[in-house]
C-alpha cells in the first residue's frame, strides 16, 4: 500500500491524490516533543548521483520535517560533525557507488564517538541484499533501494524517532 491512513495527531496524513492535485504529502505533524524532527541527508564518498537524496530531502520537508542537506563529497567525519552541530534526530546516507561497506561503518563509529548513539541512521542507494545484515548489525535502522516509496521512509522515520522519545 502506498498511501494509507494514519491517525497520528488525529490527522489523515497520507491519501491518494486526485489527478492534477499537487498538494504536498501532509503538512505539519512530524513533531517530537516541542520541535520538528530534524534530519540530515548526506552524500558520503565520491558518488555524484544525488537524485535520490534530493527527492527524499524534499519529501521529508514536505512531510513537515526540518531537513539539512550536506551536498556532495562528504567524508564520514564531515557528516558526523554536521549531525552533532545540527543536533539532528536522523541521518540519512545516500550511496550509490558501492562504497557503503567502507563508508557506513565509519559514520556509525564516529556518531558513537560523538555521543550520538540515539541518532537514527538510514541508508539509501544500491545496497545488495547480502550487505543488509551487516549494516543492520551496525545499527542502521532502514535500508532503501531503488523503487522504495517515499511514504515508507517518512513513516519509518516517524516511528523510529517516536519510539526513542
Amino acid at each position, binding site marked *: 500500500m*502506498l*498511501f494509507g491512513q494514519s491517525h497520528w495527531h488525529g490527522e489523515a496524513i497520507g491519501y491518494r491524490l486526485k489527478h*492534477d492535485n499537487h498538494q504536498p504529502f501532509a503538512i505539519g505533524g512530524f513533531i517530537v516533543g516541542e520541535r520538528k524532527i530534524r534530519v540530515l541527508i548526506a552524500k558520503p564518498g565520491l*558518488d555524484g*548521483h544525488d*537524485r535520490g537524496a*534530493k527527492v527524499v530531502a524534499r519529501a521529508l520537508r514536505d512531510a513537515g520535517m526540518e531537513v539539512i542537506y550536506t551536498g556532495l563529497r562528504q567524508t564520514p567525519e564531515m557528516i558526523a560533525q554536521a549531525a552533532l552541530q545540527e543536533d539532528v534526530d536522523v541521518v540519512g546516507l545516500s550511496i550509490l557507488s558501492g562504497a557503503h561497506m567502507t563508508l557506513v561503518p565509519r559514520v556509525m563509529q564516529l556518531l558513537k564517538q560523538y555521543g550520538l548513539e540515539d541518532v537514527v541512521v538510514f541508508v539509501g542507494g544500491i545496497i545488495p541484499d547480502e550487505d543488509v545484515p551487516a549494516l543492520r548489525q551496525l545499527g542502521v535502522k532502514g535500508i532503501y533501494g531503488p*523503487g522504495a516509496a517515499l511514504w515508507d521512509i517518512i513513516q519509518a522515520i516517524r516511528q523510529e524517532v517516536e519510539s526513542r522519545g
Partner: protein
Amino acid sequence: MQDQETMASLAQAKDEWERTTLRDTLAKWPERYEQFITTSGAPVERLYTPLDIADLDYERDLGFPGQYPFTRGVHPTMYRGRLWTMRMFAGFGSAEETNARYKYLLAHGETGLSVAFDFPTLYGYDTDHPLAEGEFGKCGVAVSSLADMEILFDGIPVDEITTSMTINGPAAVIWAMYIAAAEKRGIPMAKLGGTIQNDILKEYIAQKSWLLPPEPSMRLIVDTFEFGSKYLPKWNTISISGYHIREAGATAAQELAFTLADGIAYVQAAIDRGLDVDTFAPRLSFFFNAHNDFFEEIAKFRAARRIWARVMRERFKAKDPRSWWLRFHTQTAGCSLTAQQPENNIVRTTIQALAAVLGGTQSLHTNSMDEALALPSEVAVRIALRTQQIIAHESGVANSVDPLAGSYLVESWTNRLEREAYEYFDKIEALGGVIPAIEQGFFQREIAASAYRYQREIEEHRRIVVGVNEYQMDEPLSIPLLKLDPEGERRQRERLARVRRERDNRLLQQRLEALRRAAKGTENLMPYILDAVRAYGTLGEICDVLREVFGEYREPVII
C-alpha cells in the same frame, strides 16, 4: 503547409466527430485517466490530426535525410548503408578485468568500445588517494597511469575500432593516456577514432564529477578541440551529454534544451578563442538518453537534429554541412530500470532502444537487466547486446529512413520539443548564459523539481511502474550478479607503486613543472599533459598540478 480551406473543413469534421461519435463513447466508457501525460509530464491529446501540424512545411522543417535541417537523419541512407555502432558502456574493477570484458563483448558482435571509469578516476585521483577508499573499481575501471591504460587496451585493435571514454573533469589526461598507449604500439594519433565525453557543463548541472571551476575547465576543453582538429581528425573531442541530465530527473524537453544550451556554450567558447567554427564543429558529438515514452523520445531526437542544424548555420554561420550535423550516441535510461523483477528491464530496454533507432542514433548502449542492482553480469550484458542485434536484423525497422516522419503525433511533438527548447534558451540567456545559470543553481533546481514530481506521480499512482507500484511480487532475486575480483585492487595498487618507483622521476618533475608554467599562461595544455603522461605521471599527479593552479570547484547546495 496545408491550405486554409482544407484545414477549416477538417476542423469542422473533427468538431462533428467530437460531438457525436466521441461523446457517445465517452458517455458509456469514460477514459482511464482524466488527463494523460508523457513520461516527462507533458499532456497527451486523445488524437492528432493534420490540424496539429498545419504550419509544418516539409522542405523547410523536415527536408530529406542527409540534407538541412537533417530532421530525418544526418545520412541520406541511414541504416541501409551502415547500422549504428553497438557500443556497450563497460568497466569495472581492474584494467585486467575490464580488458577481458571488452574482448567478451567484441567476440559477441559489439562494434565499438565504451569505457566506464570508477569515481576516483572521474575525479582525477589515483587509486591510493585517501578519498578513493572503498571506491576502487566499483562503478567503472580504475585508470591511474599509462600502465593501466596499456593493459586496458591490450590486444584490442585501437586503430580499427573506435573507443568512447566517459571522462569529463580529467578528460584531457585520460585522452593523453589513450594516445600514448597507442603510440607505444606504433599507432599514430591520426589513426585513432573515438570520443572523449569531455562535457564539464553537464557535470556541474547533473553528474557532479568535476575537478576545476568552470572557466579553466572550458579552457581545457577548447584546448582539446584545437589539438584534436590538428592531430586527431577522426576523434570526437566532446560528447555533449544529456544522458546524465535526464538521469538526474530532467524531462525530455529539459534534457534537450540543457544539452543543446551546453553545446552552444562550447561553440561560443571556441569561437571566442579564435577558432574557425568549421575546424572543430564537425567533431562535436552528442549523447542522449532514451527513456520510456516511445514517441516523445523519437520526437526529442528529431528536434535535436533540427535545432542544432539551425543554430550552427544561422547563429554561428558554419559553412561546412558537417558542422550542421548532430550526431549522437544513445543510452537507454538507467533510471527507468527497476530492482524489482529485474527481467522486466529487458522489455523496457527494448522499447527504449527501438526509440533510439527510430530517432536515428549513430551509436547505442542498451542497459542490462541487473543494473538497478549491480554492474552487469556477462549473461545480462549479452542479452542487452542481443537486443540491439535483434532490432537491427530481425525487426525491419532499420530498412527505411525515419519511418515515423509525417505522423501527426510525432511531428507535432517534434515541434513542441523544439519550441520548449527555445523557451529554455531564452531563460538561460536571461540569466547570463550557461555558467551563470549553473552558479545560480537554475538547472539543478529545474531538474530536482522534475525528479520530485516524477516520484510523486509514482507514489500517487498517477504513473504505474510495473513491479514497483503495481503487479508486485514477493519473491527472492533470481538473477546472478557480478562479483568483482578481490585481488584487483591489490594488483592495481602494486602497479601504481611500481610505476612511481621505476619511472624517471626527475624527467617527470620537469614535465609537471612545464605543465604548471603553461597552465599559468595561455598556451594549449594538451602537449604538456601528453608529455607528462608519456613520462608515466599519474592521473592524480597531473590533476594536482591543475588543481593547484586553477583551484577546485564547490557547488551551491540545492534541494
